[in-house]
């Protein structure tokens, strides 16, 4: 189970600027991190549900479970995603 923190999200060309309200830190993220955050939402999802939703909503042909786990772990380290 993971959920996105309270964020301000603005899409800029290839990147997405994200303001993390809790820390006041600005992040500049490349795909698929913004898509993961948007899909998780603040309510949160289990890893399996997240993978299923991402696969349904986005064209993520070359994206496997291991890669998703890595991206998710990075987002947790950055503080943008909290684990429950």
């Amino acid at each position, binding site marked *: 189970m993971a959920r996105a923190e309270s964020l*301000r999200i*603005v899409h*800029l*060309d*290839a*990147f997405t*600027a994200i*303001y993390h*309200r809790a820390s*006041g830190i*600005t992040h*500049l993220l490349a795909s698929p991190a913004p898509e993961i955050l948007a899909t998780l939402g603040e309510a949160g999802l289990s890893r399996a549900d997240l993978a299923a939703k991402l696969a349904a909503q986005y064209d993520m042909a070359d994206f496997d479970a291991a890669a998703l786990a890595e991206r998710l772990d990075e987002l947790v380290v950055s503080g943008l995603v909290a684990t429950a």
Partner: protein
Amino acid sequence: MRHAFSVRIGPVGFRIGSDWRAPVAQLETLYADYPKPEIPDFTVRLFAARPWRRFVRPSVTIEGDFVLPDAAPLPLAQGLLAAEMGMNLQMALGQRRFLLLHASAVERDGRALLMAGVSGAGKSTLAALLSARGWRLMGDEFALVDPATGLVHAFPRLVSLKNTAIGVVEAALPNARYGPLMAGTPKGDIRHLVPDAAAVAAMNEPVPPALILFPSYGFEAESRAVPESEVFVRLTQASTNYVAIGERGFDALTRLVKTVPARAIDYPDTESAIAQVEALWAAL
């Protein structure tokens, strides 16, 4: 303090106290046409670190509401520079109402052109030269973006001209008023240009930004569009208070980046730069 001076520059009021008469007298002369603040936002103090330093090789220490711990004192002959540095420091460290961009700004037809870049990129020089061609000088150091409206507020302090820029601007504006030439400062030779009457008269009028330029001096003339994400990163670095004002800064900056086109221009000489700026502006 023995001597005091206050001035309002755009929306910001300053009070400068000094142990010596000379810097205050220079400020009074150069800022003679500026209004007085109702209440100063920032205070700067120029004082002698030791009592005898008022008289013996007088040395000006800068203090204020916000200070840098390791700022070296300046000789009294550079007292005006000390005052200006102190005022800039208060803005850079203490300004919270506006998103502060380290950029020069000029206005034409009710819209602002912002020029951001590192020291030596020519921000001040280009702003001064454009003001000689009918643009309104809004400021050579800081552009103030109001997070509530997105408008750019003017901050037309004295224009700080350095080294070769001094002669270039004196030639373009022979009838303008200037401060004393201060040779051998930590930043080289410095001379201040007094913004013209139009700049002071209109300094309370904010305008929407229309173009952001990142000039670089010393290259063949060239121009390229700068993508939004690069503009965003460059301007967070060019802002002294982006982090301090939090979410308002994020909103103000992303709005600016999403709505205003940005270009990087390389220029071999100021004449070429002015021609490029005028052409880009005309093409908007």
